[in-house]
Each structure stands twice: as structure tokens, then as C-alpha cells.
């Protein structure tokens, strides 16, 4: 067999395998869209659920997921960015830094249901926040931290060391250098990481199961200390806990959740692409 032929065969195989990666995601999106599109209507998005969730809309679940997403960001963004800046710009390579890194890696490996139990124990019971948006946001926020810290740290480290040296040589303090040069350059990467992190949180069920989600609550939350419905948990409930649930409502709910999460994903991709093109180094 000639070298060119074997190269061509290898390329074809690799292309096919790469194509297989796209297949499942396309299949999921198309299938859910076909099955669920019929359920989507203005009232489906803006009304309270009725008849034991078999009719009406998703409004409280949509509002609840939005609230939890924003709450997750409020918890995770400052802590995550602070952690990333510390690790990238300030921390020396010593035992305590290594301990922090190991902690972050392990945080990423903990199953989400364990976060749920942790949130139940710490926020709901011990700190007495009750089953609430606050407790859910804190739980989801902690779960999101590793993603935000590692992507933000990577973005900060990608900023050339020479920029830091120049800024220092011109009389810049470490913080001035970070604020005026490093952070602006790393920001697109950091924002991408933040969106990808909270996007995952928005779709999680297990962490809010014990900390925030209500089975059926046909009203909007009045404060952050209220329970709330949320799209992923609602989907779980209507798919498994309610007999005789119309399939179309299940798929419609899945479609709304999928659209929300994918939109965040697309926004992250667009931001990254926009700034990559503008980058000069």
C-alpha cells in the first residue's frame, strides 16, 4: 500500500469519527425540537401551570431558573475571579498553592448530588436559609467555581509575561498591572468561562433538589428566601412523578431548557470569537 493511499484512508477515518461527534448532539436537538415544538406557545412561556401541571405554562419554572442562574453568577463570579487572579498573579509555587489546586481539581470531580446534600446540610439547615433561591444559588455557585477558576486562570496566564514586565518597569504596582493590562486582555476568556460554568449550573437538577426547588408552586417567588420551581427539576417531575403527563409538554419543557442553555453557550462562543479577532498578540 502506498504512503499516499494509507494517508488518505487515515484522513477519511478521522473525518468520519469527527463527524460522529456531531451526530448525537444534532440528533438530540432535532428530536426534541420536533417533539416539543408543538407545545411552544406564548401562553406556555407566560402562564402558571394548571391541572396538576398537565396544562398551562412554565412561567414559575422559567423565572426560577433565571433567578438561580443570576444567583449562581453573583456567588461564583467574584470568588472565582478572585481565586483565579490570586493563583495566576500572586501565588508562589509552594505547598499551600498546590493544596488549593488539588482542592479545585477535586471540587470539579464531586458528583452534583453530593453538592445537593452539602447545600442541604450547610445552607438549608445549618445556616437556616431554608429551601430557597439563596441556598440553591450558593450550592450551584460552589459547584461552578472550579470551571470558572480554571478557565479564568488559563485566560490570565495566556496574557504574555512581557506585558507584565513592561508595566512593572514603568512603575506599575502588581495590582495596577493586573487592572490595566492583564485583566482587560484576559476578560473575553474569563467571560467565556463564566458563561460556560453557569450554563452547566442552569441545567443541573441534583444540587437544587434539596436546596431550592419546589415540586409544584404555581406562583412567582417573592424574595430570594422563597422556594421556586426550576426548569430542570420541573422536567424531572413531569417526566417521572406525574402519571398521564402529555408527552408534548415534557418535550416542550425540555426544548425551553435546551434553548436557554444553548443560547448561553452560543453567546459565550460569539464573545470569544469577537475578541480573538481583535487580539493583537
Amino acid at each position, binding site marked *: 500500500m502506498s504512503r499516499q493511499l494509507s494517508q488518505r484512508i487515515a484522513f477519511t477515518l478521522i473525518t468520519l469519527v469527527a463527524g460522529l461527534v456531531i451526530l448525537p448532539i444534532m440528533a438530540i436537538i432535532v428530536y426534541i425540537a420536533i417533539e416539543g415544538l408543538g407545545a411552544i406557545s406564548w401562553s406556555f412561556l407566560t402562564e402558571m401551570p394548571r391541572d396538576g401541571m398537565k396544562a398551562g405554562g412554565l412561567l414559575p419554572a422559567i423565572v426560577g431558573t433565571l433567578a438561580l442562574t443570576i444567583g449562581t453568577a453573583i456567588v461564583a463570579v467574584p470568588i472565582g475571579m478572585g481565586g483565579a487572579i490570586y493563583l495566576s498573579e500572586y501565588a508562589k509555587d509552594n505547598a499551600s498553592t498546590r493544596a488549593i489546586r488539588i482542592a479545585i481539581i477535586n471540587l470539579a470531580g464531586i458528583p452534583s448530588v453530593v453538592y445537593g446534600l452539602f447545600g442541604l446540610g450547610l445552607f438549608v439547615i445549618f445556616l437556616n436559609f431554608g429551601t430557597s433561591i439563596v441556598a440553591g444559588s450558593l450550592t450551584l455557585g460552589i459547584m461552578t467555581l472550579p470551571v470558572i477558576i480554571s478557565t479564568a486562570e488559563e485566560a490570565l496566564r495566556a496574557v*504574555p509575561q*512581557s*506585558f507584565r*514586565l*513592561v*508595566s*512593572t*518597569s*514603568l*512603575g*506599575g*504596582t502588581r495590582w*495596577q498591572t493586573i487592572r*490595566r*493590562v492583564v485583566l*482587560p*486582555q484576559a476578560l473575553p476568556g474569563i467571560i467565556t468561562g463564566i458563561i460556560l460554568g453557569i450554563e452547566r449550573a442552569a441545567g443541573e437538577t441534583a444540587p437544587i433538589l434539596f436546596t431550592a426547588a419546589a415540586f409544584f408552586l404555581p406562583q412567582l417567588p417573592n424574595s430570594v428566601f422563597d422556594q421556586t420551581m426550576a426548569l430542570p427539576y420541573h422536567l424531572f417531575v413531569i417526566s417521572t412523578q406525574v402519571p398521564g403527563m402529555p408527552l408534548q409538554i415534557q418535550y416542550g419543557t425540555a426544548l425551553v431548557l435546551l434553548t436557554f442553555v444553548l443560547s448561553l453557550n452560543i453567546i459565550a462562543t460569539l464573545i470569544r470569537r469577537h475578541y480573538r479577532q481583535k*487580539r*493583537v*498578540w
Partner: protein
Amino acid sequence: MTTPGATPEPKIQILDLAVAYSDGTESLQGITMDIYAHQINVLFGPAGGGKSTLLRTLNRLNDQADVALQRGQILLDGEDILERDYDVIQLRRRVGIVFARPVPLPMSIYENVVYGLRLAGVKDKAQLDAAVERTLKQAVLWDEIADRLGDSAYALSGGQQQRLCLARSLALQPEVIMLDEPTSGLDPISTFKVEQTLQNLKKDYTILIVPHSVQQAARIADWAAFFLQGQLVEWGQGRQVFTAPKNRRTEEYITGRFG
């Protein structure tokens, strides 16, 4: 200004300076020399001789590197800058540096020049504008780019970028300007412009430069110091060092027998 023949006044006195990095790369051993005001002071010698280390010690950029050992004294106007509580931020404003490869910051030409001033808290627009015009003229760049100060600094050519970096250092009105092979990546015409600029600048500043070749060293040196493997082999007036070196190793290096 000094008249020819008169002994120039030392701006910086280096006394028995030793520096070593923890990874054992470049180091300095027992360096004692003066850097004279209003002169072009040249540090030359083969790579790894400690020239860059000396520059980075002189404005304490080494503080951020992994320095295993540092002793001796560096007196700037008689004050030891290696003292632990010496104000390094102020020091770096008084002793500016231009690196071998031009590193414009990712912002406009204008913002690059005023970067150091903004860090120092200067907000007055007229003052910033004046600094931009003054330093770009000093760096012989003004005529080429005066009409596009808002453009990205990365739109400039390599030679222009290097002169921009020089202007950026000058904006802080430092007393000493150090240049680490500032023309290593430049074409002969840009190199000539930078050298001309240095000749113009020395009446107002103390200049300390690591040239990128022996030829350049010989062209511009008022005072020259030959570094070899972390040691100061010979130090004297440029004319003497390059025409009648006292040390055999200096002579061998200059005549191209090694390095």
C-alpha cells in the same frame, strides 16, 4: 554636561555587586564600576555574561525573579537602591528600561506613551498631550505617526515600535535610561535612527546600553565595560577599550577571536 577630558560625575556607583539566580543561569560576581551621568555607558560581551542581569538589578526588576543571592551595593545619587525598604516604584520611574524586543502594550500609540504617567496618577490632558509630543519627538517618531496617535501600537513597524517603547520610557522623565539590545531586531536604517536618538538624549539623560554587536558598542561608547561569564573584565573610556584594550581577553573578543 561634561567637557571632554574632565572626569564625569558618577550617576550610579556599583560596589562589589554579586547576583545569582536559583536555577544557576546567569550571575554576577563582585562587580564594581560607575555609570556616568550624561554619557553613553556601554556593557558588552558574549551572551550569558551578566549584562542583562545587571540592568534588571539596577531598577530592581529582578525582585520578581528567582534570585538566590544578592549582595553588594548600588548607589543611585549616593543612596543604596538595594535596601529592602527602598521605594522600588519610584526607582523604576527614575531608571527606565527598553527591552530587546519591542513590547507595545495592547492599546493605542497615545496610551502606550502615557501609560507610566497614568500609573503615576497624572490625569491632566494637556500634560499628557505635551508628554506624547515631547517624547515622540525625542524618539524621532513624531513626524511619522503624529496623525494616527489613536491607532493600535501594533500597527507600527518593528523599528517604530522600538522607538515608541523608548518614548514610553522617556515619558516618565527618568534620570537613567537602560537599553537592552534595543536594535537587535531592527534593520540598519532603524538602528541608525536609534543610535542618533541616543546621541541626542545623552545631554539630558544618563544612558546605559547593552549593544547588539561589538561594532555598535565601539560606535557609540563613551564608556565601555566588558563582561565575561559574570565578571567585569575591563572597564574604561570607550576609545581606550576599543583601540587599546588592557586585558588580553577583551582584545580577543573585540578582534573576533571568540564570542
